[in-house]
């Protein structure tokens, strides 16, 4: 199908084809039916007509042969018919109906004898001169009106002895009436003789379209005379034999074709819609594929990302476990020799005291002091590492109780009593009990350490909610610090005071920061020299999801 065709035509070609085919088929069938029927009818008509003509012929021949018999009988002797001729003629007319008269016309005038059929008495006899004209050959003459007014013909048969002519008048009215049966029922019959109608029976159908049904046949009557016999159907016969079924069939075919064309058109439309739908589907499918492809790309990317994160996590975990192994190594390998140094210093002091010079003991003491500090730093580092690695076991913490407990412990650890704790009721927080206790222990240890020697020592603890977190403050009235260096406070091994003044490894606040950061909180400090210090840290509010 050409794409050049307008779209509208594309949906019409199939219906048109269906209609044409359907209509052509119906037409063909119709015409064939009509033809066949015509042939059948015609065949039957011809048969009927032939039989009808034969019947007519038989009747004609019967008159002629009867008359010939008589003529022969009369001609057997060379004399005029006997006086009994009238008897014979009457017998003849009785046996064979249709004769109106039988006459013997003598060649000599005045000797003609005429016998009339019963009821025809007084009718005119033959025209003698005409009869004598046929003295040599038999003849049939007519048609003409007979005495009784009916149509008929005259027969002239020469009598063999040459004395005269046998003449007879025959009515044709009985020709078409068969005593037992109608030879051509349903047909109108007309008989024509030399352009003149001899006889007609029935009314033929007046339809030129049925002229084909007319059967004309020639009937050679006798003595060279030929009748033309026409059989034509009566309207009743035509009506009964030519039903409308072929035409109904044609109409039905037409309707069916139209219906088929309509259906085909609908199908074409449906197909067009299906095609459009398929195209739309295809477009949609393409879009869906594109979408799913981009979704797949996204998924690949996110999987790649997850894979990388997992890989990084593994690397990190590897690094962490390496760090742990390193810590273990340090704890074992570094601690052992340091402990050994201390031991041998002690052995030297105990076993070789007397051999040491005056300054020697002091040198040994310094060796011991440095070694002890190295060990303390090592311990601090390990503690920091533990705080970093310990698993967080989150729970809601009663901070007021925790603070009170930690403060008492810190005071006992330092062996100090003259410090007051100013504690407000604190909002609860969410955190790891042991680690938060470490935080508080370190802060209190610091507070006690850096307020040592001050008067009216006091540690204040307060807390308030700020958004999703609680900010706690631990303040002391100790030596304070220079605010410019506040940022260095939380670094590992960072110190703001000389070691000689305040002991410590510089790990405590680093550990505080590490623990608070692990809880998602912040730490900072405020202070000024000789005006005390205040350390702040924040923790998530209590009541979060259970760990």
């Amino acid at each position: 199908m050409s794409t050049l065709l307008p779209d509208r035509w594309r949906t019409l070609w199939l219906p048109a084809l269906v209609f044409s085919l359907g209509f052509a088929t119906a037409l063909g069938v119709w015409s064939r039916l009509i033809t066949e029927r015509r042939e059948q009818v015609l065949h039957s008509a011809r048969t009927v007509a032939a039989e009808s003509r034969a019947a007519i012929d038989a009747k004609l021949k019967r008159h002629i042969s009867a008359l010939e018999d008589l003529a022969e009988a009369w001609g057997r002797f060379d004399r005029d018919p006997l006086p009994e001729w009238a008897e014979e003629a009457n017998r003849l007319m009785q046996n064979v109906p249709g004769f109106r008269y039988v006459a013997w016309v003598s060649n000599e005038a005045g000797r003609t004898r005429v016998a009339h059929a019963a009821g025809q008495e007084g009718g005119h006899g033959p025209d003698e001169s005409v009869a004598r004209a046929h003295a040599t050959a038999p003849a049939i003459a007519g048609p003409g009106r007979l005495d009784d007014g009916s149509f008929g013909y005259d027969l002239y048969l020469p009598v063999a002895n040459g004395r005269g002519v046998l003449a007879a008048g025959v009515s044709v009215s009985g020709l078409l009436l068969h005593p037992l049966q109608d030879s051509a029922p349903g047909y109108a019959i007309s008989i024509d003789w030399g352009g003149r109608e001899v006889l007609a029976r029935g009314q033929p159908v007046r339809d030129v379209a049925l002229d084909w049904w007319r059967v004309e046949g020639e009937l050679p009557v006798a003595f060279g005379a030929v009748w033309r016999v026409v059989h034509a159907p009566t309207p009743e016969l035509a009506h009964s034999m030519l039903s409308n079924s072929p035409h109904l069939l044609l109409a039905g075919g037409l309707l069916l074709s139209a219906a088929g064309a309509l259906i085909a058109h609908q199908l074409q439309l449906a197909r067009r819609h299906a095609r459009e739908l398929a195209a739309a589907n295809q477009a949609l499918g393409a879009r869906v594929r594109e979408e799913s492809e981009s979704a797949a790309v996204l998924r690949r990317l996110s999987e790649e990302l997850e894979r990388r994160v997992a890989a990084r996590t593994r690397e990190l975990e590897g690094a962490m476990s390496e760090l742990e192994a390193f810590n273990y190594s340090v704890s074992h390998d570094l601690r052992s020799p340091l402990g050994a140094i201390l031991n041998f210093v002690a052995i030297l002091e105990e076993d070789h005291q007397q051999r040491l010079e005056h300054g020697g003991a002091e040198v040994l003491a310094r060796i011991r002091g440095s070694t002890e500090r190295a060990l303390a730093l090592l311990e601090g580092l390990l503690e920091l590492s533990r705080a970093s690695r310990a698993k967080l076991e989150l729970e809601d913490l009663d901070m007021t109780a925790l603070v009170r407990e930690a403060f008492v412990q810190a005071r006992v650890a330092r062996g100090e009593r003259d410090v007051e704790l100013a504690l407000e009721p604190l909002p609860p927080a969410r955190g790891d009990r042991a680690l938060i206790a470490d935080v508080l222990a370190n802060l209190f240890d610091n507070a006690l350490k850096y307020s040592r020697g001050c008067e009216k020592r006091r540690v204040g603890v307060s807390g308030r909610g700020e958004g999703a977190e609680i900010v706690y403050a631990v303040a002391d009235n100790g030596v304070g610090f220079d605010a410019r260096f506040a940022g260095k406070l939380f670094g590992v091994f960072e110190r703001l005071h000389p070691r000689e003044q305040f002991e410590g490894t510089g790990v405590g606040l680093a550990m505080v920061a590490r623990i608070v950061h692990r809880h998602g909180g912040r730490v900072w400090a405020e202070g000024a020299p000789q005006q005390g210090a205040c350390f702040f840290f924040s923790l998530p509010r209590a009541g979060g999801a259970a760990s």
Partner: protein
Amino acid sequence: MSPDVLLLIEDELDHVDVIVRALRKAGVEAEILVARDGQEAIEMLGLDLADHEPAAPMLPRAIFLDLKMPRVDGWEVLQRVRASRRTAAVPVVVLSASDRPQDIQRSYALGANSFLLKRFDPRGPGTYLAEAAHYWLELNQPPASAAEKFHWRLPAH
């Protein structure tokens, strides 16, 4: 009666010297045998051949056992000691520089009687070890005879 034997299994010579000095100074009279790693200790205890024990192997009154050693470490020695019926009841004191909880727990799980952290004792080098030796060698009564009598069974670990 043969003198009591203390088997010290320690690879660090510094530690060995300090410990021996501390024990002698504290008046511990037991014979002190030193194995310089786990493998040596196993051989000395006659635990190196499976299903075959020497006729007259050394059976110490107590074992001081370092954990981190070359070749065979302390845990393996501990396992072997506890696995042999002959040595199963010998008190084992683990000496370690590590205070990692998992190390301590593992030691006890394998059948250690005590876990001592190596540290500097301000009272004198190794004084705490001399005290431990005094306890395990002289005060503590091991279930050695009971082990033979009742077919001492190992606790599952």
